[in-house]
């Protein structure tokens, strides 16, 4: 294998048959290029999906009240369900081990004013826990804390866009801003990687907003995260229990789907991982099919080469070449061409991915890359492909009868 002469033979035959070698190599290089790009693209889609959902904690469960669709327990249908503070307390007590963070949510619109600047924004009344659930990043100042919450302080955490709109160059932290003519003190500014729209939000303590809006204990929505050590099955089982118990508590028919809706992120995630898993499986299958086409192509060309070189092989055999030496020559040439051209394809594909990958950032497609293991596997496939493609032609070559090859007639 490391015989210098055999390599010289191979380089010789490659140098003297440039077009042939190029055509052979191109089919393999192209196959590998497509395979790697395909795997990279699937990876990019996976990244894109994950990124979209990563905006919120991935173990979040949302509880949204609705309107009943069935008469039950003496109530007529079309009854509005209203969540209250004691629902949160109840969940905290009943599912102490199952949940990690919990927060109520209250959605209100407000027209905000600072000096001469005004704007209309969504305000969410939340618990301090909500920072973790929504993965809110406070860039400046702080988030709502327990003290704010208990006292119902008129404080607000505003989004970066809100700060830009209202405060321009000024530092908003510590300043007072008017929400529907009530003064709130800005305690922090948050940013959100997900999208700009999220940065047009304002967070305030839930208690404060409940006080402002008629001193109620009503909440619009409950968000909680389940115990992060739970796997998918356990998480789904937990949200199932949650649903049953809340329906019982609010006297909703157990089969009523619209009275209370529980949205578990785990479910969506399992769907996505099944989807992307299927996608990468598909891409591997397609890639291998393309490679097979490439291998058949090489085999084809090798058979043709053997036919073309029949006379030469005959001469070599007449001069004393053993069949094994002929096999080695043909096989090594085929492996060399596939490995080299495949490697070039691999290099091009990974290079292209490395170059444009980081710049690719769309909602469902982000940073397509290939892992090192993919590259290694591709390389192994390449050498294997060369062996497979060269084997039959090599065997054929070794069986060339010198007498037939050398007959002048």
């Amino acid at each position, binding site marked *: 294998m490391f015989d*210098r*002469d055999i390599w010289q033979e191979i380089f*010789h*035959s490659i140098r*003297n048959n440039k077009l042939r070698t190029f055509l052979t190599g191109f089919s393999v290089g192209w196959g590998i290029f497509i395979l790697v790009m395909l795997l990279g693209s699937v990876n990019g889609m996976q990244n894109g999906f994950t990124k979209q959902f990563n905006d919120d904690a991935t173990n979040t469960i949302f509880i949204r009240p609705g309107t009943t669709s069935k008469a039950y327990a003496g109530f007529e249908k079309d009854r509005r369900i209203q969540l209250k503070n004691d629902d949160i307390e109840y969940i905290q007590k009943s599912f102490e081990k199952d949940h990690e963070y919990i927060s109520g949510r209250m959605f209100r619109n407000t027209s905000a004013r600072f000096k001469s600047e005004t704007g209309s924004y969504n305000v969410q009344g939340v618990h301090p826990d909500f920072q973790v659930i929504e993965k809110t990043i406070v860039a400046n100042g702080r988030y709502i804390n327990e003290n704010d919450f208990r006292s119902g302080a008129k404080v607000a955490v505003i989004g970066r866009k809100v700060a830009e709109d209202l405060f321009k160059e000024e530092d908003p932290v510590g300043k007072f801003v008017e929400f529907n003519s009530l003064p709130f003190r800005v305690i922090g500014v948050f940013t959100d990687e997900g999208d700009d729209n999220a940065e047009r939000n304002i967070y305030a303590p839930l208690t404060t907003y409940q006080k402002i809006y008629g001193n109620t204990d009503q909440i619009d929505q409950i968000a909680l995260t389940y115990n992060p050590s739970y796997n998918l099955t356990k998480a789904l089982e937990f949200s199932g229990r949650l649903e049953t118990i809340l329906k019982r508590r609010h006297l909703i028919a157990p089969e009523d789907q619209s009275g209370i809706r529980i949205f578990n992120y785990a479910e969506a995630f399992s769907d996505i991982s099944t989807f992307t898993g299927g996608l990468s499986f598909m891409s591997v299958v397609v890639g291998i099919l393309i490679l097979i086409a490439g291998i058949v192509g090489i085999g084809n060309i090798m058979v043709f080469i053997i036919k073309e070189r029949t*006379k*030469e092989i*005959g*001469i*070599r*055999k*007449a*001069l*004393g*070449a*053993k*069949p*094994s*030496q002929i096999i080695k020559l043909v096989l090594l040439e085929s492996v060399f061409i596939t490995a080299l051209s495949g490697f070039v394809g691999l290099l091009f594909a990974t290079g292209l991915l490395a170059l444009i990958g980081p710049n690719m950032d769309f909602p469902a497609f982000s940073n397509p890359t290939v892992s090192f293991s993919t590259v290694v596997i591709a390389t192994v496939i390449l050498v294997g492909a060369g062996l497979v493609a060269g084997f039959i032609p090599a065997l054929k070559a*070794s069986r060339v*009868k*010198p*007498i037939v090859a*050398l007959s*002048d007639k």
Partner: protein
Amino acid sequence: MIEIKNLHKSYKMGSNSLHVLKGIDFSVEEGELVAIMGSSGSGKSTLLNILGMLDAADSGEYVLDGVPIKDLNETKAAQYRNKFLGFVFQSFNLINYKSAMENVALPLYYQRVGRKERQDKALKYLDQVGLKEWATHLPSELSGGQKQRVAIARAMAAEPKVLLADEPTGALDSKTSYEVMDLIQKINDDGNTILVVTHEEDIAHMCKRIVHLKDGVIVEDKKVKQVRAQQYV
């Protein structure tokens, strides 16, 4: 050197069988220069192929330098060819992408001779056929006579026991033919055993013995007075 007894060979042509060699008895001593003559279809090429182990006989005995040539597998045949025989063909059969020197060195490569030694030997044999200056040229840059001389150098490089030449002058004009024959005679003068297949009378008479083949049997086997090719060059 060569001992053949009752050699038979037939080829299957569809349902028919063509009996080409019908019992050949033939022996060659060391240092002989034998011409094998016959019209086409007489079996002379088949005989040469069997002698060259490129083809196997159906029955009969073939002993080469004391080694019985029988039931050879491909690998063994390749080894014997490499060790015992040198070939010269009508159409030269040089490898067209290799230089003259590389062509001459090829049988040595299959003898596992080291690189440096191979080159030295190849140059030495090229020098012997008078083509040392053409060592780096490709066959396409050589004339017919030069190509055949390279082929002879290649056949000699492996230092074979027997040189088999199949119509070595068949593709050459008469002047070049005589040059090639002159070379063959000189190699024979050094004590090498050479068999030349030809259908040209004048070429045959430049050998020391002529064997006539007709319809698969030897009809005549005579010693002749060698005509030196030197005088025509």
